[in-house]
């Protein structure tokens, strides 16, 4: 099978960058080989869709704004009423969801080829992301596993908190290289490692 090319290309340079005196404030990496599916429930089928996502992925969600769950490579989070990102490392994710969610329950679109997922971790991650997005990254406002939809300079992004100091950022694949460079500039102050 052909290997999917990363849009980061030559701008993905493993190693330490930025302010060496500060140590490694954040670590940046690209999550690869994921399946990313957006599921949308009709206005009166949200609980049924959440049950179906649960049966297809093992990740069961309550109907609450932004709520999400993470288990290893798998994750799911809401980012709008009845809309969910469902992510996994298995290529059959879309098929499994399609067999669980008929058009009576909702719709889905495979975003795998349209998004790039960047994982930022480390003690400086809240600080660095706060330079780019006008939302509150503190853990009480943005708890673990929750998702957010927001903007970076008019470019849409979905963000999920993975643990106390780790976030996954979903950006449009066509903007990923530009976003990656901006993220590097924002992280230079605290020192960053690309791996």
């Amino acid at each position: 099978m052909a290997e999917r090319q990363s849009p980061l290309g030559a701008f993905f340079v493993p190693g330490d960058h930025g302010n060496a005196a500060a140590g490694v404030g954040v670590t940046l990496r690209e999550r690869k080989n994921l399946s990313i599916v957006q599921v949308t429930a009709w206005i009166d089928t949200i609980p049924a869709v959440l049950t179906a996502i649960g049966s297809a992925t093992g990740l069961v969600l309550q109907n609450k704004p932004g709520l999400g769950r993470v288990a290893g490579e798998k994750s799911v989070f809401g980012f709008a009423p009845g809309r969910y990102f469902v992510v996994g490392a298995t290529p059959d994710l879309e098929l499994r969801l399609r067999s669980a969610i008929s058009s009576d329950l909702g719709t889905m679109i495979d975003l795998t080829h349209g998004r790039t997922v960047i994982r930022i971790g480390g003690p400086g991650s809240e600080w660095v992301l706060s330079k780019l997005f006008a939302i509150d990254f503190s853990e009480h406002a943005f708890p673990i596993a929750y998702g957010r939809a927001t903007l970076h300079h008019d470019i849409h992004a979905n963000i999920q908190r993975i643990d106390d100091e780790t976030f996954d950022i979903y950006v449009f694949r066509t903007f990923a290289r530009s976003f990656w460079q901006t993220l590097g500039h924002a992280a230079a102050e605290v020192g960053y490692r690309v791996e």
Partner: protein
Amino acid sequence: MIIKCPYCGPRDVIEFIYQGDATRKRPEPASTDQAAWNAYVYDRTNTGGSHREFWLHGGGCRQHLVVTRDMSSHAISSVALARDVAASINDGGRA
């Protein structure tokens, strides 16, 4: 200005797109009353105080909102999902 989206929570106005007066009433689609259509398309009361307006949270959950905003002070007194407002009107209630 910050708008507290019912789904996303408080967000900067940069994430929202203004979509106009939410107090207008569209004439029946089959209506040929020119004055009613003219008023619907062009007439605005331009009140100085509290006003109901549509906003789109394009930089977040992408939902249409009904916002009640004081046009002098920008103070926002209520925000609701437009689909909830429409549902309550269709149920015979008042928005």
